[in-house]
């Protein structure tokens, strides 16, 4: 895949003056008004994001019998219809192939939402491990997704998809959005009250236009989305987690059900016995300087870890980041520095989320 992909909205982003850049092979809007303005607006009002690049799979089958339960780290069998669950798919070594969200549409009816850059890899993995004959469809190309995120998003949903106004956190329903069939979930990647709207790709431009005709809603780019997710301490696949990390060192153990069998479980159990060599840490700087991807983490002048994501938090007015640190007991509160051969920035190990008391579960 050498050519860059466009979403149904790429042309519209350019017309509206967004700054575009390649992300995961797609020509995506990085910012409209500015990353900081869009970040602040999402936490105080409501923004919409073009997330059409992400992948969607549809799958039919009893989770145990068809092999789905064996593929995903989270327990799926007890999911109520209309609920979402976050989890991962692993290789035999326990390395994370992708993180994803599973939607249970019926007792044997599923949608799986995966990262854009991993669609083909994930598809092969599912097809290789599902019981032969299991109905599995990659509907990424024909499915569009717009994320509506921010404390005012419920007011918008009330107007465009009234039935969905009752949705609780991590639930979804198939309902009409502006009179057209869609799937609406109360999920997101910003840490605010928010919804993800799945509609047929060809209907995305019309929905986007109607959303932006509402003066309360502003478009936001992937730059703001990255700051927002990092302010919550959410991992980004390909940057914070990858096939070389396991859910144990990535701090994602709570999304792993060790009471069931799944691909990679044996490797994780043996790593649990021997102990993991590094831990996920969250850090903030003592200045406006930002940690950056691949900065070292120094403890008493010695390299003890690496930053996987870093940025400036407009809400905390300091740099924030996440990374991996060698196992140091009671790391929280530890004074460290981050940097490279050019710069060292004073920082401290802290907890996630960096931004607390958001509208997420209101």
């Amino acid at each position: 895949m050498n050519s860059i992909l466009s979403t149904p909205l790429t042309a519209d982003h350019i017309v509206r003056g967004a700054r575009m850049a390649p992300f995961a092979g797609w020509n995506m809007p990085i910012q409209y008004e500015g990353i900081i303005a869009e970040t602040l607006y999402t936490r105080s009002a409501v923004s919409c994001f073009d997330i059409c690049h992400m992948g969607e799979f549809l799958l039919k089958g009893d989770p145990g019998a068809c092999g789905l339960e064996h593929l995903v780290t989270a327990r799926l069998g007890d999911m109520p219809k209309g609920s979402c669950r976050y989890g991962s798919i692993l290789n035999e070594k326990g390395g994370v192939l992708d993180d994803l969200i599973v939607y249970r549409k019926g007792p044997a009816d599923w949608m799986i939402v995966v990262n854009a850059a991993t669609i083909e890899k994930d598809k092969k993995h599912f097809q290789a491990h599902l019981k032969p004959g299991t109905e599995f469809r990659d509907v990424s190309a024909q499915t569009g997704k717009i994320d509506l995120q921010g404390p005012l998003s419920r007011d918008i949903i009330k107007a465009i998809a009234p039935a969905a106004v009752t949705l609780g956190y991590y639930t979804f329903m198939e309902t009409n959005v502006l009179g057209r069939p869609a799937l609406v979930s109360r999920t997101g990647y910003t840490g605010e009250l928010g919804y993800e709207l799945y509609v047929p790709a060809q209907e995305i431009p019309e929905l986007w236009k109607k959303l932006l005709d509402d003066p309360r809603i502003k478009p936001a780019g992937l730059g703001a989305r990255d700051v927002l997710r990092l302010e919550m301490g959410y991992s980004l696949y390909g940057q914070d987690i990858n096939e070389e990390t396991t859910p144990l060192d990535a701090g994602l153990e709570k999304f792993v059900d060790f009471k069931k069998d799944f691909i990679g479980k044996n490797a994780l159990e043996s790593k649990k016995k021997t102990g993991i060599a590094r831990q996920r840490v969250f850090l903030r700087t003592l200045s406006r300087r930002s940690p950056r991807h691949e900065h070292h983490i120094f403890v008493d002048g010695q390299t003890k870890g690496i930053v996987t994501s870093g940025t400036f938090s407009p809400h905390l007015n300091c740099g924030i980041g996440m990374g991996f640190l060698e196992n140091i007991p009671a790391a929280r509160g530890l004074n460290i520095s981050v940097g490279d051969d050019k710069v060292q920035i004073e920082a401290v190990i802290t907890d996630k989320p960096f931004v607390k008391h958001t509208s997420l579960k209101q």
Partner: protein
Amino acid sequence: MNIPAGLYFTKEHEWVRIEGSAGIAGITDYAQHALGDVTFVELPKKGQVLKQFQLMATVESVKAASDVYAPVSGTIIEMNAELNANPGLVNQDCYAKGWIAKIMLADPQETKNLLDPAAYKAYVEGL
């Protein structure tokens, strides 16, 4: 793209305005636009002696950190301390309130190594 008259420019997108025996320097509109929201500026130190095109400052944006080079050789005589509290001035007003440092010129002839507004405009349009 704002490229004011009366300034000299570098291909690394710094500008300098010569005022008597000193030069006031900052980054250009092209640079601030490319960086996006500026969140931090590491200023040079007073008395620091710099050669032309040597590292003078670092500008951090939400996305990345970028080096800023001295457009002329000389001694730093003043820094824009306003940027410590309000680095966004670099975005809002890069040629005035967003200036970075004032340099006592070591060699006034060095402006011949810089671009005039027309040459800088042609250079930026070719990028």
